[in-house]
């Protein structure tokens, strides 16, 4: 799909990236200053890399001989700020890059902006403006859609109003390069995850694989770590949904039905050596310790195999030693339902 190999220097910072993506949503994740936006801008043709080669769908848009301007690259770009044209209506913005005779209705319905068509951008909320910007980029019918932290400018509440629409985008079939430093967004949206640090790709692979890898967790920062499970809601009672996941059945609040994706933060998993009795926590899964990763801090990251699913658990080194844990040992993983944050529950693919 996207085949990038670029080198670019800005002052003391060097971007040196080699990356191939498949269809679906590829998230480029990394801390601020890792070079995520520079990479996105190079791909879109907004920044000219010093050297390298960029191909989209087998078509070379940049190399030693070619440097197509952005308008000839067939790449849509959703910026951090909506960047709507203030002198055009919502309809005018949506249609700006669309071919003649394109009907914006389907896209507008998918993004929930059909009622805003005649409004001016000045009269939109932040979340609405973000959705219009996404619709505008989609209607351009790009071969690749780059989304550069489209939610970063929104507060947590507004972000919640946009995320479900982004999840629907996953089904729209356009390959997406999603730039973000927010793991919750990435965990909800991505199929493939690329970790970028100091201008270099440090890990790349499927989302589930990387998020359940203690080594990658150390790279991402232990407080960000958490495995992702996908499952189907089989029953809803007392406001709790029972979800069948590869790791076992989990009970989660705030889910109504369908196929969902749950992120379980490593910090929210407690490990017990015996089956716990008399606990208020609802989710207890038998598991086997598969890998142990000791970081530089006081924490230890465990990779747990529970059924066919994988969980990450973060313990203090002291607890780890006191319980005498080790690879291959059978344990019980205890998950508080509140440990599965509502904001971390989203529709799966």
């Amino acid at each position: 799909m996207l085949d990038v190999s670029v080198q670019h220097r800005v002052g003391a910072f060097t971007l040196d990236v080699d990356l191939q993506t498949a269809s679906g949503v590829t998230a480029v994740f990394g801390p601020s200053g890792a070079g995520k936006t520079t990479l996105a801008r190079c791909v879109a043709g907004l920044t000219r890399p010093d050297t390298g080669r960029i191909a989209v769908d087998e078509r070379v848009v940049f190399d030693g001989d070619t440097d197509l301007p952005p308008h000839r690259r067939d790449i849509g770009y959703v910026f951090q700020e909506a960047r709507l044209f203030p002198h055009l209506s919502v309809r005018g913005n949506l249609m700006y890059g669309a071919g003649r005779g394109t009907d914006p209705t389907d896209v507008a319905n998918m993004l929930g902006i059909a009622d805003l068509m005649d409004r001016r951008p000045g009269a939109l909320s932040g979340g609405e403006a973000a959705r219009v910007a996404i619709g505008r980029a989609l209607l351009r019918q790009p071969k690749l859609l780059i989304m550069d932290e489209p939610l970063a400018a929104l507060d947590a509440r507004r972000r919640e109003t946009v995320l479900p629409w982004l999840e629907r985008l996953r089904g729209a079939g356009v390959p997406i390069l999603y730039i973000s430093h927010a793991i919750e967004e990435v965990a909800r949206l991505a199929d493939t995850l690329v970790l970028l640090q100091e201008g270099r790709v440090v890990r790349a692979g499927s989302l589930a694989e990387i998020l359940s890898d203690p080594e990658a967790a150390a790279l991402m920062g232990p407080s960000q770590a958490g495995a992702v499970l996908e499952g189907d809601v089989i029953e809803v009672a007392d406001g709790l949904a029972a979800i069948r996941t590869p790791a076992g059945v989990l009970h989660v609040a705030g889910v109504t039905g369908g196929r969902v994706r749950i992120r379980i933060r490593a910090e929210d998993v407690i490990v017990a050596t015996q089956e716990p009795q008399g606990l208020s926590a609802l989710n207890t899964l038998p598991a086997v310790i598969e890998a142990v990763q000791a970081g530089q801090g006081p924490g230890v990251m465990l990779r747990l195999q529970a059924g066919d699913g994988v969980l990450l658990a973060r313990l203090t080194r002291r607890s780890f030693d006191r319980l005498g844990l080790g690879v291959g040992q059978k344990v019980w993983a205890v998950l508080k339902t509140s440990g599965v944050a509502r904001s971390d529950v989203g529709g799966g693919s």
Partner: protein
Amino acid sequence: MIELPPEAWEALRLSLKVSIVATVLSLPVAIWVAHILARGRFRGRGLLDALVHLPLVLPPVVTGYALLLLFSRSGPLGAVLEPLGLGLAFRWTGAALAAAIMGFPLIVRAIRLAFEAVDPRLEEAAATLGASPWRVWRTVTLPLAAPGVLAGATLGFAKAFGEFGATITFVASIPGETRTLPSAIYAFLQVPDGGAGLRGLVAIAVVVAVGAVLVSNWLAPRIAARVAGR
């Protein structure tokens, strides 16, 4: 209604014609020059900037004299244009050229400021939506700079309407051909009984100038609101 001698009406009509033609013809050039001054990065940009501002700082009579040297029958441009019947010296078209040149720096200045205020990030967004640089300019840059274009055009028109020094030097003050309103006021001043015509023309000059500013002030916030998406 003010009692005006016919030659005063003639001067008003001529002045309106001269300033409208001057504004309309210089506007596209001014937009182009303002854009390259605002966005262009090229050698000689400072020189172009100085050249554009020259009529603002030169004594008008010097500008008029320079035009006369260029466009008189023996001047380098006049020698070409006169035989074709397109001579400008001592014609109303010459008055329009003088008015356009004198108003040019003001128009360029206003429009340039407007171009500099257009957010380049919007132009970037337009490019990622598949718009060529020319389409970006036509559909994003220029519409967003529209309030400045209007302000520049108003200033240029008012300046052209009042232009005197360069005009009278270049095309003299021929009744019915080049005696614009300021020239006519000057001519009335030379005659002891200029009374009614003089006062009338002065009043008209004030009305046109104030009118131009009022129309511009009425339009500007409407265009600005449109552009700002409210």
